Structures are given as C-alpha cells and as structure tokens.
C-alpha cells in the first residue's frame, strides 16, 4: 500500500523564472536551466573595457562565429556547479583509491629506468600541455558569450588543471615524491626537439584572440590528435612492454576525455550547423590548426612509438576524420 503524506497545498503563481518559461515553456525548470540560460548581462553596459575599448564587457563580436542564439551552445552533461563538483569528487575518490593501491605496492618506481624516463618524457611533460589547455579554456570562460558556454569552459579550465595535477602525481610516483621527475619533464618540454613543435603551437594558441577559434584549436584539434597519441597509442605501446600499472593511472584521463569530448562535440556541431558561414570558418580553423599540430607531433610520435609512429598517426587521423564528419565538418 502506498503511503501518501498530505502537505499543505498552495498552488504556485508561476512555474519558473520568466526567461525560462519564454524559452522552454510553462513548466518547472531544471537546476541546469536555472543558471545556464539567459543569465549573462547583455545590454546597457556602462563602460568600455580599458583593456579592449573596441568591445563591450560581454560582446558577441569577440568571435567571427555568428549565432542567432548563443544559448544554443548547450552542455549535454547539463552540469551546474553542484552536479559538477559532486561528479568530479566521486571520480577523484575512485582514482585516489587506485593510486593509494599502486603507492602501497611501489608500482612504477620498480620499472626499469628506461621505462621511467619514457613516462617522464611523455606523460609528465604533458602536464605543461594541460596547463596550456587550462589557459585556453580559461580564455573561453573569460571572453566567451553566454552562460552555457562560459560556465562549461570554467569547468573545463578546472578540469585541465586537474589533469595537469594528475600527471604531476604520476611524476611523483616515479621519483619518490622528490619532484625530480617534474624538473626533468619541464626540461623536455622546454628544450627537447620532439616537444618543441607542440610547445610552439600551444604558445601560438596563447595569442589567438577569437575564443571560438581557440575552442576549435585546443579542444577539438590539438586534443583530438595529442590525447589519442599519448593515452591511446603510447599507452598501448607501453603496456605491451611494461604491464598495466601505467594504464590504470592514465585510465582516469581517458575517461575524463570522453566526458569532455561530449561537450566539445556538442558545441562545435551546433555552431557548424547554424550556418554555411560558420561551418566554413570552423573548417578553415580545423584545417589550419591540424596542419600545424599534426606536423608538430611527428617527432614526438617517433620518440614515443618508434617504428609504429607512422601507423599510429594514420590511425589517429582516420579517427579524427570520422569525428569531423560526425560534427558535420569536412575531412582533413
């Protein structure tokens, strides 16, 4: 028998905030909707920024992309701050247990020196790439238009810092928490020829002023090439020689990438579908950045994968093309 608790019934005078009723119809709004939609100030700004007098504080023209409704760039995960931090805390708990388990066993530190060097060279050095991505997502959060995109970019900014910190932790596994591996990895990032192409591209992204171009360059193209290179191809290669311990740590980044990609793809697909002009623009950005980034990682791939580098890059690029076509974009 169902037990029903009687509560005082007072009929509300409205179901939701007015801008949400206008957008979604006369029904209760979700917590995602309540903060994500139509909350950014959009008119009657008082002063032009001293640091950018050609634009308003929030300004649609800070990207060449044109949208009739900027709130169309939704987050399919429907994260708001609470659901985001709770989800991430849970994921972090799981990886912390995994790391504690490996730490007990002294895993990674028992690997041969050559393998340790390879991890430092690849994953630990990649923390700087992640910091670069933190910078770029931070840019999107600061200068993007509309709460849906800037909220998700703020979360992405935090996520990328988390990834950089996770990779740093892997370094601390290798060096008995002295931080020596972090210094070595930074040296690779700064000076090793195999990393310079990518570092150059990351620095080039730091001076891009169109935030949507950065979304494409960093989150679609660079991640679309670099992440599979490290977390899929290199990880497989390494596993075949040195066992699964490293994979049980990189697994965290792989899972996170899947979650992140859902957002990136939804945003880019929606913007590309908006107009032929948007699609062409995104196509051009993809093409340019891919050209540079793909050639920038040649040396890195060889260093990490040896003879398998060419085949791996072909796989990565084929998969990237499949993804582009799903987004309604042209293959490269």
């Amino acid at each position, binding site marked *: 028998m169902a037990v029903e608790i009687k*509560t005082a019934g*007072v009929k509300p*005078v*409205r179901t*939701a*905030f*007015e*801008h949400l009723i206008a957008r979604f119809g006369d029904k209760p709004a979700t*917590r995602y909707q*309540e*903060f994500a939609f*139509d*909350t950014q*100030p959009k008119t*009657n*700004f*008082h*002063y*032009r*920024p*001293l*640091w950018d007098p050609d634009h308003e*504080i929030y300004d649609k023209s800070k990207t060449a992309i044109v949208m009739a409704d900027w709130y169309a760039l939704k987050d399919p995960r429907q994260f*708001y*701050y*609470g659901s985001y*931090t*709770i989800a991430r*805390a*849970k994921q*972090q708990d799981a990886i*912390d247990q995994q790391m504690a388990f490996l730490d007990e066993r002294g895993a990674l530190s028992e690997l041969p020196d050559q393998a340790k060097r390879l991890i430092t060279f690849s994953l630990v050095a990649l*923390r700087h790439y992640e*910091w670069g991505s*933190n*910078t770029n997502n*931070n*840019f999107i*959060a*600061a200068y993007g238009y509309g709460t849906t995109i800037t*909220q998700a970019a*703020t979360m992405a*900014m*935090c996520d990328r*810092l*988390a990834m*950089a*910190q996770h990779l*740093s*932790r892997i370094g601390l*596994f290798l060096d*008995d*928490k002295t*931080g020596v591996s*972090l*210094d070595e990895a*930074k040296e690779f990032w*700064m000076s090793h020829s195999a990393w310079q192409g990518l570092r150059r591209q990351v*620095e*080039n992204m730091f001076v891009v002023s169109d935030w949507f171009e950065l979304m494409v360059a960093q989150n679609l193209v660079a991640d679309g090439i670099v992440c599979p290179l490290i977390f899929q191809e290199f990880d497989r290669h390494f596993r075949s020689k040195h066992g699964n311990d490293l994979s049980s740590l990189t697994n965290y980044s792989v899972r996170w990438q899947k979650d992140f990609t859902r957002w990136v793809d939804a945003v880019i697909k929606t913007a590309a579908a908006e107009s032929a002009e948007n699609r062409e623009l995104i196509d051009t950005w993809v093409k340019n950045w891919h050209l540079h980034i793909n050639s920038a990682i040649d040396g890195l791939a060889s260093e990490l994968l040896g003879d398998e580098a060419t085949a791996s890059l072909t796989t990565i690029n084929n998969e990237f093309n499949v993804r582009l076509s799903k987004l309604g974009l042209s293959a490269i």
Partner: protein
Amino acid sequence: MTKAKKLSLKQNYTMLTKGLDWEPSYQKKEDIFPQLSFEGIKIHNWDNWEDPFRLTIDAYWKYQGEKEKKLYAIIDAFQQNNGQFNVTDARYIQALKIFINAVVGLEYSAWRGFTRLGRELGDASPRIATQMQAIDEMRHATTQTHAISHYNRFFEGMGNAPYQYDHAWYLSIPKSFFDDACSAGPFEFIVAISFAFEYVLTNLVFMPWMSGAAYNGDMSTVSFGFSAQSDEARHMTLGLEVIKFLLEQDPDNVAIVQKWIDKWFWRAYRVLSLVATMMDYMLPKRVMSWDEAWTIYYEENGGALFADLARYGIKPPRNAEVTIKEKGRLSHEMWSIFYANRDVVGFPLWLPSQEEMAWFSEKYPDTFDKYYRPRFEYWQELEDLGTPYTNSTLPQLCQVCQWPCLFTEADDPTEFVHRETEFDGEIFHFCSDGCHQIFEDEPKKYIQAWLPVHQIYMGNCLLPDADPSSPDFNPMAEAIRYMGIKPGVDGGLFKDHSDAKNWEKWTERPANIHQGASTDFVRKTSSQNSK
C-alpha cells in the same frame, strides 16, 4: 619496496603546481599577457606571491562537493515543505527581491571578472588562485539562484532578474559598480574586488543578508550563507595577500594602490547603502542597525587593518570620515527615496510602524527623532487620508555611483549634497565629493555611464512594441515596462500588494507583523495571532 613518503597538503600543492607555466620562447610574453603593463603596476618577482588557498583541484572538488550535497539536501527539504511560508512575514520577501535582482548579478560579474584574471595575471600561482575564486563566484551566483528560485514561484518581482539587472534604474547602481571593475585593468580589478570589497567590506554584505535570513526563518538563503562562508574566508585571505604583494613589489605601486583603495572604498560604500536600507527597514526581525554594523565592521575592523597597512605608506581611504558622519542618516534618507519613488521600483514599500520608529529612536538617538520621525509621521497621516505622498518626477542621478542625489552634506543633514563639473562642454552631477573625485580622475570613463534617468528622457527606454505616437501613450508606464518592472504589480504600497494579500491568504498570518492583519484571512484565525 618501502611505502613512499607522504606529502603535507602544502608540499603536495607546491609539487603539483610546480613550474607548470614556463617562459615562452615562440611568442612574446607581453603578447600572451597583454593587460599587465598599462596600469603602471610594477611586478619584479611573481615568486613572492604566496598562494593563500593552496588547494589542489581534487581537494577543492571533494571539499566543495560535500558542501553542495548538504546545501541541496536542505534546499530540497525547504521546497518540499513550503519553507517560504515559515519566514517572519511578507516584508522579508521584499528583501529577497533585492538579493536576487542585485546580488546575484554581482556574483555573476565577479565570476567572469575573476576568470579574466585567471587568464591574464602573469604567473601560475596567482592565476590558479583567481581561477579558484572564479569558480567559487560561479557557485555563489548558481546557488543563490537555486536558493531563491522557490520563492519566485509564489511571489512577484523575482521572475526576471537578469533582465532587470540590465534595465531597472536602481539596479544600474550595482551593475555600474561591477562594470567599472570589469572594465578596469587586472590589478585594479583585484584591488577593487578582492581587497576593497571582499576584505574590507564583505562582512557588511554577508552578515546582514545571511544573519537577516537566519533571524527571519529563511532556511534556504541562510543555508547558502553557511555554505558560502568558508569560500568567503578564502576570498578575504586573497584580498590581503594581493595588497601586500603589490605593495612589496615596488614603491611606485603604493600611490597607484592608494588611489584604487580610495576609489573602490567609496564605490563599494555607495553600493552598500542598499544594504543599510535592507538592514534597518526591510528585516521584520532585525539583526543590528546599520550604524552598529558600520561601527564594528568598518570603523573598528577597518581601522585596525589600515593601522597595519600604514607601514607600507597606505593611508585609510579618502572620505572614510564622511561615511562615519553619514551612518546615522544613510538608511533613513535611502528609505525615504524608495518610498517616494515606490511606483517605479520592483518591490512595494511601507512606512515604519510605531514599534520600528521606537527602535530607530533608540538606535539613532541623534538623528531619527530630529530629522526622520516627523517626516514618516506626516507621510503616515497622508496614507491614512488616502492621499499617500509620492514623487512624480524622476530623480537626478549621480554620474558615478548612479544613486539619486539624495545624500545630505556631511556636516548638515538638512542640506542635499550637489556637486557638478564641466567636461567637454557638458555638465555632470554628483551625489558627493567622493563620486566627484572619482570622476575627475577618469572623466572619459564616467561620461560613458548608462544613466537610466537620462536614457528615459532621451527616449531610449522603450520596448519595440511601444508606440509614442499613440494618443494614450504614457511615457512613464512605458519606461517602467522597459525596466522589467510590472506597473501596478511590482511597486506601490506594501499593504495593497499581491504578495501581502497572498501571504495572508496562504499563511493566515499578518503580512506585516508590526501593523497587524489587513485582510479577513487572518482575522478569522485572530485568536492564534492575538499575541
């Protein structure tokens, strides 16, 4: 293999963020961080920056995630149990309207402002600190919206907060404040918000709202307050770190920072006038008077702070003595203006009851009976006669803070302050010397201000469907509509307002506990309310 050593929280933070950023060699640093030089601030060594948070992002998620779980459990319970009817009376709800329409907008701008700093400051450590504050501010805007959402389903005037923030005349006061900071350089922003606002004055925003919520049974809002308290403590720490860092980097920074402290103290103080009004007039159960709050939180705490900063050559903010002279008058002058202009604001107004005036006499012995009681008693007579006093013209706004020029001379409470200056062939008006001085320092910035009253008179405040050529065109009603305020619904006298009537219908308790019931819904249960 022995178990690896454990790092302390601070060591862990240091390791995980160690050297994350780098000296660029393929692009110039000044192109990557283009906002760092134009303000004249000199930074010689970013390594001297001590990150006060020292939180790795995983620790942040866990800590915050736990707080969010608790907060939403309470908000859910509040909604399920119609907690909105447990607050003291329907006047308290009117304070929440200011909260959602003004404060949420401020939190929103703080979020976006701090994301800019997270990108633009030239070093990993301050960037991580400001990124963390950015997402905290996003949290506050989000959770405040969620905490108040349920009230919106039952009461007027909360349904279109983002629109009102952009359009309503009195909301241009908080909006222009944050637009001012967001349009400034990164160092000015952080001095303005982290130091002048968060460190020096945040208690004056946080304490009245959140204690007010607690005193008046608003479980939803006060739970937000408790949950945000530890965030605020972090932000205040950042404010102090920022100021010390800037002052220690170069002696030339001192004069620039002093100028910003002077400016932002005054700017923030003017915004806080809204809080003064709320504390003294809108909380049915009061926490403390504005006079008391200013004495404790500015004069005593602020006094100690500026004594401490004297060793850097920093002086207390310019015009601080004016705020002390004004503290016995601020809320009363302000409430008078709101009452007189009640038909063009987003919440209804009321006159203080006998009980409340007795409290004011006690809390404001030097000012209330002399200057304000006679005014309120006269206005009460007019209300009782059915001809309530109202102001039918639009007020002159201050070019800087955007309040009506309603304040009185520091040394003469019977004389309105009116300052003006000429710039580029036009006359500009100010509510105070403080605002006038701010204008003189950056006239080209402040002449841009979107002053609502000017805009209305210029005919810029019309919705697309308004027809000025129609015979029954009412310019005032159209301007109110443009501002997102519903004529005949949102403003007016509290006792006639639908919130008051619905409150008594729904709760069978008086909408104004000090005046007693004004509808039959309460009278029929009067035995329960005779106390």
